[in-house]
């Protein structure tokens, strides 16, 4: 297997830990921001993104109900335990996971001058973390983050994607995480029975292949002249469905299709995006089926 030299590994580790710090959601030190080339505006945009738009908990994107916690969080906690690392209070929080990744790569650099059982074990740990627990949701997450936060957060987004790319470049799959494995059946496309079923579906990224942020809903509401209430996404959607039915679904359908296209357009770079685009396409088809007379 091809390996990076220790200097590259150390740089990767440093960036992973620096990105972890930025993903904390607090204001990091100016020295760190300067070193990464992130200005005050960028920092605020990242914070807003993490706090209000796309909470960076893996379980939201990997669980069936789209909520924090549950089985997917337990699985990630199990990974910490398996490699004898103390499980932090929120093991699936992005910053915890990036910090762990940085620490593992640092260890990898220490043992990089030859292939030993130890160095092999460290490498496996790194790839497992990245391939099973991090990349499957972080890649589509970052693409959505880029759409939502725009250029202000681009340094953070680009560096995080660079980190994933550079590690995956020298490794192979398979991605064994559920989001990858539960390849949707494209045969039978069923319409949604009612708005409740639709809301359950669309608010679960794992089911729908779609990541919806509060600002997406606000934009859709605005474009239709509807009033969007504040609160959890499912309540916002519920409120919107009480005001508008068909047009709303059409608009959401467009939004879903755009996401499917986005993932498809980058899926040659990131294999992990393939199931995401497939799922988004199915969701789009289900919306169309529901709209069909």
């Amino acid at each position, binding site marked *: 297997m091809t390996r990076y030299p220790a*200097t*590259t590994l*150390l*740089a*990767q*580790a*440093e*960036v992973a*830990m*620096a990105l*972890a*710090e930025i*993903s*904390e*959601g*607090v*204001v990091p*030190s100016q*020295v*760190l921001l*300067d*070193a*990464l*080339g992130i200005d005050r505006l960028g920092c*605020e945009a990242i914070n807003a993104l993490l706090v209000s738009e796309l909470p960076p908990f893996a379980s939201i994107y990997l669980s069936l109900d789209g909520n924090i916690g549950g089985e997917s969080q337990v699985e990630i906690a199990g990974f910490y335990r398996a490699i004898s690392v*103390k499980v*932090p*209070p*929120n*093991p699936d*929080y992005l*910053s*915890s996971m*990036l*910090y762990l990744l940085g620490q593992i790569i640092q260890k990898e650099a220490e043992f990089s001058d030859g292939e030993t059982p130890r160095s092999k074990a460290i490498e496996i740990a790194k790839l497992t973390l990245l391939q099973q627990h991090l990349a499957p949701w972080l890649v589509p997450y970052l693409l959505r983050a880029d759409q939502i936060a725009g250029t202000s957060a681009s340094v953070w987004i*680009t*560096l995080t*994607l*660079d*980190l994933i*790319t*550079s590690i995956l*470049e020298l490794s192979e799959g398979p991605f064994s995480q559920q989001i990858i494995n539960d390849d949707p059946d494209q045969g039978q496309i069923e319409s949604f029975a009612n708005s409740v079923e639709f809301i359950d579906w669309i608010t679960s990224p794992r089911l729908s292949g779609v990541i919806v942020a509060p600002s997406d809903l606000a934009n859709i509401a605005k474009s239709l002249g509807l009033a969007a209430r504040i609160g959890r996404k499912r309540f916002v959607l519920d409120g919107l469905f009480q005001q508008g039915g068909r047009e709303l679904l059409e608009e959401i359908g467009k939004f879903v299709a755009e996401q499917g296209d986005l993932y498809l357009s980058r899926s040659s770079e990131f294999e992990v995006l393939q199931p995401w685009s497939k799922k988004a396409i199915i969701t789009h088809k289900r919306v169309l089926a529901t709209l069909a007379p």
Partner: protein
Amino acid sequence: MSSTFRLQEAGERVSAAREATEKRGETFYQGPSGIHLASHPPFERWSDWMELDSKAWPTKKERRYALIPTTCFNCESACGLLAYVDKETNQVAKFEGNPEHPGSRGKNCAKGPATINQITDPDRILFPLKRSANRGDGKWEKISWDTALDEIAAKLRSSIIAGRKDKIVCHIGRPGEDGFTERVLASWGVDGHNSHTNVCSSAGRAGWHYWTGMDRPSADFANAKVIFLVSAHLETGHYFNPHAQRITQAKERGAKLIVLDTRLSNTATHADYWLSPYPGSEAAINLAIANYLIQEELFDREFVRKWWNWQEWLECAHPELEADFETFISLLKETYAPYTFDYAAAESRIDKKVLLEVAEIVATAGEKFASHIWRSAAAGNLGGWQISRTLLLINALMGAIATEGGTYPNAWNKYVPRPIYTPPHPDVWNELSWPSDYPLSMNEMSFLLPHLIGQGRGTMDVYFTRVYNPVWTNPDGMAWIEMLLDESKVGCYVALTPTWNETSYFADYVLPMGHASERHDLASYEQYDGQWVAFRQPVLRTYANSQGGEVQDTRDVNPGEVWEENEFWIELSWRIDPDGSLGIRQYHESKKNPGKKLTVEEYYEYIFENSVPGLPGRAEAEGKTPLGFMQSHGAFEIKNKVGQIFTEAVPENELIETATTRLGRVYTSAAKPVSTNIVPTGDPDPDSSGKRPVGVVVDGEVRRGFPTPSGKLEFFSKTLAEWGWKDQAIPNYVKSHIHPDKLESNQMVLISTFRLPVQIHTRSANSKWLDEIAHTNPVWINPIDAERLSIEENDLIRVNSEIGYFVAKPWITQGIRPGVVACSHHMGRWKFTDATNSLTMRRVELDSEGAKRHLIPKSPPKPYLSSDPDTARFWWNDVGVHQNLIFPVHPDPISGMHCWHQAVSVEKAHIGDEFGEVHVDLDKSKAVFERWLKMTKTAQEVSPDGTRRPRWLMRPLKPTKRASLLQPADSLK
């Protein structure tokens, strides 16, 4: 640019920045916390910390803060706090944890951050007040500090000049700085220190003291394999937050947690084994476990052989036997054989299989057995001190004394730096605080004061309470009111308090004292195997100084004219002795500027420069003075891993002209080296030729040993044997005053001492966040008892004690065992004046009829308008009942501890009974006092050497040998 290249470049830039930052000794990565609540601002950014203003949301308004450390004042744990001083308002905006504090490590319980409620309480006392009508009428006038100081100083001066040195008493509640008040009183030459300890922890202490010569456990919870708590320690116990976080740490590593608590406390819910014993049977359980270890030979024989005073036991108690170790072991087996699991099961009403299982777990711990007891069962029962002593027996059997994961004596995990002056101890003995009826009492018999004064044993010229509320906290509060109202008994009463309380309403002077961020103190407590000091400071004073401001004294920065005690006591001492002729002023004078008053800066400068090892060097490395270091970090760890001091070899230079007793106690003529750590311990007497005890011979080597008369762990206390209690000289089970054999058929046990993790004795009456969480104290009652007594959830109940009754609400719950009821501390606060507002004090009327006293509720607390809009919003009006009023005094004849548990009968309230009302008969309370007094053995009867109390036992002020001798008229018993 390729991604790998971009990454390489960024990585190198970050590495360079990190290395440069770390070279400056600063933190670069704070580390991920998951979510940011668990992380702390790194130290190097404390001078200018930015946060977004949460109230301005969704607008992003930046606020800049200076973060100044201080120490929490809300319990004895002395956790570190960080005050966020808003640079725009120059006021403290909030408190969070101080990550630089080695005990609390950045964490706090709810009470720490709630300090902000206390300092912004719209009803706090802001100015010195003097009563303007009859005592107890609740009428006040504002006076200047000068007037207050002059008037009080004049009274003190005249008492001191007249030689009425036993008529000045200072009654301490929340300790501030170790030894500060004691030294002030010593400088006045009075034996006036009075503490709350005999209603708190003196039984827990006594058990420890008789074993080790030190009076508290310091369990190394974090490294323990088995943790054994006789209490709700994890939830609310002493050193709550520092200990809870270490117990949790141990549990994460797989340590087993065993909890003995009659009540299903939050602690019990975390236990691997929760044992709910019948109250008072805890010592029987401890002894059954000890007996199992002894009979099965699962104890550390070598440790016992080397470090127990078994020879002394054989020699004194069994002179007929061979004085060898095997004989001792046989005797030990024989002595404890009756404490079978069957016996313990019958006493505790816990299945014997469970007791055996617990004993087996204990046996696996080896040296990593961490046990703790403080108040709880020890404070509840007659003979409660033996619960503590029998618990330590288990540690002593396992050799788990001062081991990693074991239990240390507190004094080795604590550092009390030698201050600038240590005045000599007084040449007078205060019989009201230390009556010869209780020669072995661990601490002052403070809760007996009204009864002793009532018997005509003495009076007080000037009585101070310091952050203390005896009318509410002590048993028999009505007797306290009676005493305070009588000016012939209490000439002048001065309440030093930050908040209004039930006792302060009877004061002549109410003097406002500061909270955690408004005063100076030094603290050091045993919370792990290490030694640290933490600095409580008036944060706005430190902030003003850092901005170039001039601060004369702490009043300049505190709200209103709130002061700190240290400056107050220095000022008061100067006014008692303005020209120095009484010899008092010399202890409060500057050394740098002779003839001038000592300032708090100089006081702490001296300590930090001379008495805290390692601090000057560490400060210098940061380019700071030692005082500057403490002002900016708030705490300093002197030592980590202190280890087994008792095994240390005594250095040659301390072994001059030694004399060694037959049992190996070594005495020396070498002077005691001056230590900068003046932590109090037992102080064994010199030998007959005046040589001081220096060590003990173990296997031919002179080791440091323990500060006990024998120098060893005293399994057998010769002191107890010689002072009339031969039958209690070894760890033993005393049947409590609420033992089932002693109860009437309609009586149950009332547990009244348990605390809630979010309240602060009686000082949190206006801490709105805490009050919202907990503001009432229903009586816990098991469904079986409720059914038997036909009590339903919404009923009112009467709880009847020996001297009266209160009316309360029941809480029917399986969280308490049948036959026992429980009611929490803190609640049932009251006031009889409308002069003050409160979130938890109901308005009441105090009424009397002969010896009968009544507390009649008038109205619950109501929302009111103030500078804080929240006072108009509070929603609760059920503030519980003041149960302590119906508790007569129960002084343990040995430890002197008030035995809190009560034998009560519970019934449905009578028609016309009102929630919160309390009725007491003072004649009955006097009769109970007299009955318990008969259980004592007075010094006159038992003192083996004509002294009033064994001199080696710890005592906050230690009168001279002359003053310690019994006088013919000492006891009126």
